[in-house]
């Protein structure tokens, strides 16, 4: 089997990302490890969104809801673990990442199922707007719910623990996040190649024809939406642990917009689109932010140029047109 150009570029990207922390330590700029971790986490969040947006063609403008829920699960469990107070139903908090991730998966799964069940009855612009409405609902709830900090957010004093690893060490935490990203990418490519994934993509291209061969698009889309929310939720939990802080701004509609931006910058529907997009975005933000206070102005221009003239995103430029859709 020969490597396609895209696979080669994908390999280069992941090796590049994995190499950043070691280079950072080498040149005495340990902060770049934090940047690389941020890239890995944002990429994972976007991998989740890419499932519905890239494969399913469903533009969810409310994935920040899952990102934020993941963040709050991490924050709330950690807060209860450190205070020793029981959570609801007598359950204890936890500062173990695997437990937090599991709870995040369950909570985001339930919320995703509920939001998806209602939202997927609509399509097109209505779908964009109803997902936005749900995330706004959760946003306002987080802002005005006093128990966990409201608008001020929720601090995690000590980063949660991972068995056998010192997660406070930036490089260890980076490796945890990179591992989760690779797992997320693996899951994405498995789904894409599966019958389920084929049906999901077919439903994007022609829902009527899919229905005609006896497959109902609704349950397939609902499953994809739920799964996608779960992945983005885990990224949110990681993000809260990176910043040691969960806040309502993780749920704001700007965050939903940024997740979409990541995917499109990298290349919609491509396996590594989110990774390429997250790399570009974080480097833009950091480099432009250091050069000018007006960096958002230039980010807007760049984004506009990508949408208008470079539709395939970064991977489209590097690897040529996508194989699919």
């Amino acid at each position, binding site marked *: 089997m020969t490597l396609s150009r895209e696979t080669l570029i994908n390999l280069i990207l992941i090796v590049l990302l994995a190499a950043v922390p070691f280079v950072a330590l080498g040149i005495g*700029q*340990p*902060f*770049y490890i*934090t*940047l690389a971790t*941020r890239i890995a986490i944002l990429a994972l969040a976007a991998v989740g969104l890419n499932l519905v947006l890239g494969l399913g063609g469903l533009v969810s403008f409310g994935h920040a809801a899952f990102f934020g829920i993941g963040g709050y699960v991490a924050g709330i469990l950690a807060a209860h673990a450190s205070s020793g107070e029981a959570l609801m139903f007598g359950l204890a908090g936890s500062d173990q990442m695997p437990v937090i991730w599991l709870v995040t998966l369950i909570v985001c799964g339930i919320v995703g199922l509920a939001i998806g069940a209602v939202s997927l009855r609509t399509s097109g612009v209505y779908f964009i707007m109803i997902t936005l409405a749900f995330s706004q609902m959760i946003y*306002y709830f987080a*802002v*005005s719910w*006093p128990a966990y*900090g*409201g*608008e*001020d*957010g929720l*601090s995690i*004093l000590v980063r949660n623990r991972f068995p056998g690893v010192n997660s406070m060490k*930036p490089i260890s935490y980076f490796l945890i996040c990179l591992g989760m990203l690779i797992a997320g990418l693996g899951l994405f490519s498995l789904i894409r190649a599966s019958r389920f994934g084929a049906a999901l993509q077919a439903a994007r291209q022609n829902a009527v024809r899919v229905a005609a061969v006896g497959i109902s698009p609704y349950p397939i889309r609902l499953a994809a939406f739920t799964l996608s929310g779960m992945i983005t939720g885990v990224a949110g939990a990681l*993000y809260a642990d990176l*910043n*040691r*802080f969960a*806040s309502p*701004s*993780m749920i704001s509609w700007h965050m939903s917009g940024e997740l979409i931006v990541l995917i499109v910058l990298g290349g919609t529907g491509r396996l590594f689109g989110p990774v390429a997009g997250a790399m570009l975005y974080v480097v833009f933000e*950091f*480099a432009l*932010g*250091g*050069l000018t*206070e*007006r*960096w*958002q102005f230039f980010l807007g221009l760049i984004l506009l140029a990508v949408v208008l003239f470079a539709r395939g995103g970064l991977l489209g430029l590097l690897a040529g047109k996508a194989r699919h859709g």
Partner: protein
Amino acid sequence: MKNLLSAAVIGLGIAATGQAAAEPLKIGMITTLSGGGAGLGMDTRDGFMLAIKQAGNKDIEVITEDDGQKPELAVQIADKMIQSDQVDILTGIVWSNLLMAVAPSAVAQGKFYVSTNAAPAALAGEKCNPLYFNAAYQNDNLHEAMGEYANKDYKKMFIMAPNYPAGKDSLTGFKRYYKGEVAAEVYTQVGQTDYAAEIAQIRASGADGVFIFLPGGMGIAFMKQYSQSGVKTPVMGPGFSFSQDVLPAIGDAALGVKNSGQWAKDLDNEANKKFVPAFQAEYGRLPSIYAVQAYDAAQLILSAAAKADVKDTEAFRAELLKADIQSPRGKFKFNTNQHPIQDIYVAEVIKEDGVLTNKIIAPVFTDHGDAYAKDCKM
């Protein structure tokens, strides 16, 4: 790429002049220079830099970065400043929610944090820390002052704040000193700009006074709508809603409003008489309270740096605690929880040569600390 990044690292900072002898004191300033709250951050930066410039100390390096009023960006910048720039002191954050994201972990990593504005209750009480200083106030202070002031003339108050922790702290602070009846306690949406529904409630409540805490655009919108509503009940509030940066946008609707503050530009002391013209000469505008607080934070750091090495944490902290500065606020010293003990005044919005500004009418508290100091065990 590397050049780009290192340019970014230097940021807006003032590069150290290559003195090899003394290790310069590095201060990381994280403040809001873009987005809706940028005005406050610019005053913070300018007030701080004025003190640094006046001191003329070449061994002080200030690295400034914009947090865009986003907590996660503030955390990222703080990580960068601590890990890569290796700053000794962090400062400059305007908002409580950003401060809560940055300060606890910064002090846990052994860095000083000197707050120029935000002062959430948690960091003044149980979670106080030897490395955390606040040069501004405690969040509740100005609200407490208005509660005390309202006792004199008002029997029944309508009180209102946004539905977020600082809003709740505000009304709690007000009620801590106000002894009269509370007609209604209303929490509005954060960022709300139309107050018609609340104004109707004020009209119907029969209150003889209204206390609002609505910072920034929220206060501007409320005051303009209130003046049009035909409701004549007097309004009062903490100084942030009526400081120099927002008064021009409210316009004459603000005239006569009573508000509390620990500083006003006409405060009669030597330091203030020098500070106000110096700020105006440097930046071409009147200073706001944020500029004063940041100016004092810089003065505090300078005063400690003159006598102790920041690497000697204990000695540096002891020097900071002495608060050996000439504040434009007049008297200034630190409480046991390292928050200020200072005088708080009530001012009235007046028009002076066609410009709206505040004039002090009476002191409310002298040597006022805060309610949380007793919970602080250091």
